[in-house]
């Protein structure tokens, strides 16, 4: 080992002040590649050694920007391009909604990159050894003494004469450092053939034991009977169709069971002319109409159909239904409003079935008549 070239040298000192004096002496003699070893971090040592501020911040900044970009791109792709979903009427690419995820990804990326960058790039870990560990001073350096490490790559370094430059200082010793292995990372001891065979053997043993227990050992499979059925689930792929879509669109002209075609969607006036209220006016039908009205119409139109509903603070206020216009409309015309919606009012076709819509109109007629009662109604 002694024939090898040294990779550096370590000088031992008793106190931090002696160490600083040693560093100053080495710097005076033109040494630039210096490092210090101490049992604990010494404040301002980086300044004494002339080391600039850490460049780790740039790693964090670049990784943070990468996280930001990735988050924004991914959300834009998912929410606005690949699977557009209308959420509360907001734009598909909604900046405010995307900021939390962007922020989280920025923090995640930059914190991971900072830790990994510090360990791998700046501290060159993992290493299985350091030439310093073989120094005779390593016990002192990790306990109560301070060391100055000189790099052999320094142009001023020479194994024989360097020791002399510390003459006159309070040093405790001088030791040359030698490289232990050609490459500290791929140690032969770790990547040796017997070890790899052992690793493969353990993996094989574990997986075959697991397989045997689950296949033949009478183990109960996990509770998934409901999920694992031989059927097509919504939004799943199917190979039975050329377009591979499991959910089939209806054949053109299909009429769903219980549904009647409604040709008046674009012509409400025609509905008023053509449609006649098919529901009979009975006590029970008026009661049903009143209940449906209370559930679906009253929040906006009010209990008396006079536009004094409870939601009017938050939603547009509807017109009163006691106007001569509303009273003059035929039942079919009102049915068209319920079915297709009008102005701010949405369509209620999916929420109120056909018969109930007609019953609501009966009840509305009763409300209108009660509000505009004539003398004969009072008898």
């Amino acid at each position, binding site marked *: 080992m002694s024939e090898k070239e040294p990779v550096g040298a370590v000088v031992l000192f008793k106190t931090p002040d002696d160490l600083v004096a040693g560093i100053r002496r080495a710097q005076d003699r033109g040494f630039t590649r210096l490092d210090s070893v101490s049992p604990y971090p010494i*404040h*301002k040592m980086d300044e004494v050694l002339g080391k600039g501020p850490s460049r780790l911040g740039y790693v964090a900044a670049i990784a943070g920007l990468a996280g930001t970009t990735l988050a924004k791109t991914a959300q834009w792709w998912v929410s606005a391009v690949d699977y557009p979903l209308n959420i*509360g*009427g907001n734009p598909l690419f909604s900046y*405010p909604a995307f*900021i939390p995820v962007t922020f989280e990804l920025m923090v995640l990326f930059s914190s991971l990159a900072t830790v990994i960058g510090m360990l791998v790039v700046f501290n060159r870990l993992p290493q299985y050894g350091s030439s310093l560990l073989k120094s005779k001073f390593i016990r002192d350096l990790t306990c109560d003494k301070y060391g100055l490490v000189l790099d052999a790559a320094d142009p001023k370094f020479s194994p024989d004469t360097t020791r002399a430059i510390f003459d006159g200082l309070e040093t405790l010793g001088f030791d040359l450092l030698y490289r232990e292995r050609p490459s500290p990372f791929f140690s032969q001891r770790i990547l040796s053939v017997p070890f790899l065979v052992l690793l493969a053997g353990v993996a094989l043993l574990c997986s075959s034991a697991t397989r045997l227990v689950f296949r033949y050992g009478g183990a109960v499979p996990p509770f998934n009977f409901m999920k694992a059925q031989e059927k097509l689930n919504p939004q799943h792929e199917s190979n039975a169709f050329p377009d591979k879509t499991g959910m089939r669109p209806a054949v053109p002209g299909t009429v769903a069971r219980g549904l009647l075609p409604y040709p008046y969607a674009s012509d409400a006036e025609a509905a008023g002319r053509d449609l006649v209220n098919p529901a009979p006016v009975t006590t029970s039908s008026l009661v049903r109409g009143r209940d449906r009205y209370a559930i679906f119409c009253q929040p906006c139109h009010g209990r008396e159909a006079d536009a004094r509903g409870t939601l009017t603070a938050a939603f547009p206020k509807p017109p009163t239904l006691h106007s001569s216009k509303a009273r003059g409309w035929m039942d079919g015309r009102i049915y068209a409003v319920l079915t297709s919606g009008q102005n701010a009012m949405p369509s209620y076709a999916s929420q109120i079935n056909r018969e109930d819509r007609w019953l609501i109109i009966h009840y509305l007629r009763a409300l209108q008549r009660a509000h505009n009662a004539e003398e004969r109604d009072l008898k």
Partner: protein
Amino acid sequence: MITENNKIRQDPTPMPRALTRAALGAAILASLLMAPAALSNWDRFLGNWLVLFVFVVTLGLGALFLVALEFLVNATWSVPFRRISENLAGLILISLPLAIPILMGLHTLYEWTHSEAVSVDSILRAKAPYLNLRFFLIRFALFYLVWIGAYFLFVGGSRRQDSTGDVGLTKRAMKLAPPFMILLAFTLTFAAFDWIMSLAPYWYSSIFGIYLLTGAMVAGTAIITFAGASLKLKNLLPEAVRSDHFYNLGALLFALNTLWAYIAFAQYLLIWYGGIPVETHWFDLRSQRGWEWVSVLLVLAHFLVPFLALLSRSAKTDLRRLRWVSAWILGAHGLDLYWLIMPSVRVNEGPFGWQDLCFPIAAIALALSVWLWQSARFPVIAIRDPRLQAGLQFHL
């Protein structure tokens, strides 16, 4: 390792004469501009006065917050800066007379003080047990009782220590700091509800209190950074106050400013997502008549510019950079309050009229006068604080 010159002046450090002239000039200019502004649009003048009042209150409370924070966490790095915070906390005292025009103009500013409006409005009626004149004034008195009481306990105790050197005063301040922090959070939350949120009595946001509280913390830290960096640049601070101390101040400013942005965005996001007209109405007012540009400017001025300017490590030790960024943040805090208050007071008017110009000048005059008045009486460092030596020797 590093030898320090710890010679510290025991008497008040004389401030440059130019500061007195600047304060006087700003005061004269502001009062000259105020008269026509008040005559031309009294309502707008009152709204501006409310901005000025809340600005002064938040600066004072922010400074007092830093004083209490030091005792709360037993920080040593901030001991050399504490007297600066204490002197500027005097803004709380000056804010009390500033409140007189507000209290006289309550009827102009706050809709809920109109009994005829409350009687026909079910929402205002439901809020009347809280939003009524008597309870408002009781709360107002309570806020000032807590703030002025804390001012005299913390600041007065520290000044007494200059002559007595009594360690018990520091121990007492450490005992007082935790309850004061809780009280500060509550009082400033309700002050935010009372003075700003109730301008638009339909609107509510449960995060609003912490919004103003973080605004106050940022503003307090900014004015102390500004004063500290200016003093250091003029060589009026001891040699031992080094870049290590200013690094901490800058980092605190950076963190608090980012916290403000976080809170402000949280408020916006929830209201945007909910999309309920009662809530979005408030932001809608700030998205029209030119206020949309103020909203954008606020994001840039109160978050993006300070964030980028303070991001790097070297920025936090660069005194000139710290000085302009903290002054910038103070301006952004004023803009924030202006943006919170003005659109609710003058619903049909745009931002930045000539009538508003006198108020930033008045704020500068007030802050400078309080600073000169206080620092003429006490040394610039808490000279006999038991932790001062540790504070001066602070290393990063």
